[in-house]
């Protein structure tokens, strides 16, 4: 069991979970992810690493409560345990010296982009952070980003903070900057990744996205995470998760993510009583 050190909802529906997993954080690098199970009968789901402390042996995850597993994770209390935390998985993010890097994040990506932005800053890049959300009350970790960013920009759907609209306004944001952008890094939901890439393509700015297809093992064993990048099939868990956003076959990725849409709502509707009685029967 991996002990839950801290668990709280940071903004509506987004949770921060800190778990003790010393082996996992020993060699952790920005951009990597872990796979966790919330309980013994649980599904394995990938979550990016948003922070870690190698000395204390803890890893911090930020997740959106969206389906059955994240729902269970959201209910975890401090001191409880989860049966699986495995990692670090995937390749570390490339931390090059690019010049000015625009870090674009929304939703859980605000958390997962943080260690990447931090490392890019430490490497000597200038950091422009662009955070996107439906409304201003959904932003979190702003202080962390303010500290490491040379400029911090917001986009909100309802216009309560910064630009009004969505990531489609990114070209305007870039145009308004006093400096050229040499690279864009995007973390967050698939739509943000896609729209961010669409926005930078005409500008010719290299754009790296952290892909989030369905995964099971995270080690290259099952192939469910395959994505087409530049016409070649890649396994996101071992060849990624970072890819060139201008080369990703987005329609295919969006489709593949929907594979279990119908099934995924079943557990949300199943009563726990039924589950318990079935389980008791089979584990006699």
């Amino acid at each position, binding site marked *: 069991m991996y002990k839950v050190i801290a668990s709280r909802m940071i903004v509506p529906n987004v949770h921060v979970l800190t778990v003790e997993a010393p082996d996992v954080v020993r060699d952790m690098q920005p951009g990597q992810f872990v796979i966790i199970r919330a309980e013994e009968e649980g599904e394995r789901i990938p979550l990016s690493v948003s922070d870690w402390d190698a000395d204390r042996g803890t890893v911090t995850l930020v997740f959106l409560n969206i389906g059955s597993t994240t729902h269970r994770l959201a209910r975890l209390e401090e001191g409880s345990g989860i049966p699986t935390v*495995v990692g670090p998985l995937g390749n570390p993010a490339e931390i090059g010296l690019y010049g000015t890097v625009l870090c674009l994040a929304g939703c859980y990506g605000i958390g997962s982009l943080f260690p990447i932005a931090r490392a890019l800053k430490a490497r000597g890049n200038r950091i422009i952070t662009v955070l996107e959300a439906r409304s201003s009350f959904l932003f979190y970790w702003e202080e962390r980003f303010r500290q490491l960013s040379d400029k911090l920009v917001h986009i909100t759907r309802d216009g309560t903070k910064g630009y009004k609209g969505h990531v489609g306004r990114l070209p305007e944001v870039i145009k308004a900057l006093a400096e050229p952008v040499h690279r864009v890094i995007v973390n967050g939901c698939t739509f943000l990744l896609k729209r961010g890439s669409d926005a930078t393509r005409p500008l010719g700015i290299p754009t790296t996205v952290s892909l989030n297809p369905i995964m099971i093992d995270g080690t290259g064993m099952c*192939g469910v995470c395959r994505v087409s990048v530049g016409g070649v099939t890649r396994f996101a868990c071992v060849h990624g998760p970072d890819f060139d956003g201008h080369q990703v076959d987005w329609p295919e990725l969006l489709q593949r993510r929907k594979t279990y849409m119908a099934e995924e709502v079943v557990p949300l509707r199943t009563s726990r009583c039924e589950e318990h009685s079935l389980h008791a029967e089979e584990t006699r």
Partner: protein
Amino acid sequence: MAEKKKPDLERREIPKQPPEVRRHNFFEVALGYTEELAVAEARRCIQCKKPQCVPSCPVEIDIPGFIAHIATGDFQEGVRVLKSRNCLPAVCGRVCPQEEQCEKTCALKKLGGTVAIGRLERFLADWEAARGAPEMPAIQGPTGKKVAVVGGGPAGLTVAGDLIQLGYAVTIYEALHRMGGVLVYGIPEFRLPKAIVNREVQYLQRLGVKLVTDFVVGKTRTIDSLLEEYDAIFVGSGAGLPWFMEIPGENLNGVYSANEYLTRLNLMKGYRFPEYHTPIKVHKRVAVVGGGNVAMDCARSALRLGAESRIVYRRSREELPARLEEVENAEEEGVIFEFLTLPIRYEGDASGWVRRMVCQRMRLGEPDASGRRSPIPIAGDETVFEVDAVVCAIGNSPNPLIGSTTPGLTLGKKGNIMADEATGSTSRAKIWAGGDVVTGAATVILAMGAGRKAARAMHEYLCGS
């Protein structure tokens, strides 16, 4: 022995769930011999002076020896003889391709009455298990040396079991959340109940083997990092990288690798969704590409989930690499076989789901490198199957992770670790390897055998005996 008499050629059938029942459940197909059936079958063995079955068993079990004990009803002694060579008899008795090994060279085969060696092996193992916890072997005094085993499949489990008895401190590191390798994530419950694998794993734990799950060697820690702590390492990481055919439409929704399909079902227990939370789709028409054990397992699983299930194989029935018994079981259960058929592309609907499988019909030509007649396309002869799922079971190769993170470890063309066949030693000192990671996808008994040899060699190296 009694006076010479005509051999009894009536091979005792193993009771099974009837096909029309078992095709709807995931319980084990074969129910096992009763004591009476086992004794009757064992008595048919003519106890050859120079038994030909023994050299055909990759671990050279004293086959007539254990069978003689069954014949006289001394099952305990039979178990002892069996286990002195094979530490996983309940598994091997169920999944070994006996018709290619021990039973192939049985003296009674020519007469048409091959002794059911695998079934007798299984009987003894199950008999022992039914009596409760197995006898604990003697454990030698501690050597003070530590060994790490990478991978909890049959190769790794065997090495751990052998070395712990020789007084080593042994830790197994397994990437997944359960020990057992293919035995838990690949081979389905109806062929190998997971309780059997768990029993073997618990046994190792009782012997003192430390089991660490959720630990990906090469990621969580590298081999070299482990070597700072351990005196020697055995790599038994299997052949877990799935191949695809690289034909159009392979990334449509509903096209799975066999590993994905079987992992969802077996490791994650998708067939008990939503009680277990990993979803598995209920499909109507499933096509499985391939002809090995893996393909049979996928096709029979799809059938049990309620689909019309068909095997699409590019050669003919004769060349099917699967165990004969599983082919027969699949046929009885109603799996449809399309021989001499090769998929060339998949077509999907507007929402990206696979709907049709377009295939090329083949004929057989000259034997190829594998000795089997090679399939040749018949120009212009195409056929189409309506499907809503395709499972690609055309093979696996070793995962490159360990090779790519261990400098100096020599690899073969397919990413397999190069190791000495007799000892499992690799190009790196203190690192041994065996099982599918060395041979490519093979069999449980070969993985076990390789583990045995490596354990012996590691012991010699570490204790100079």
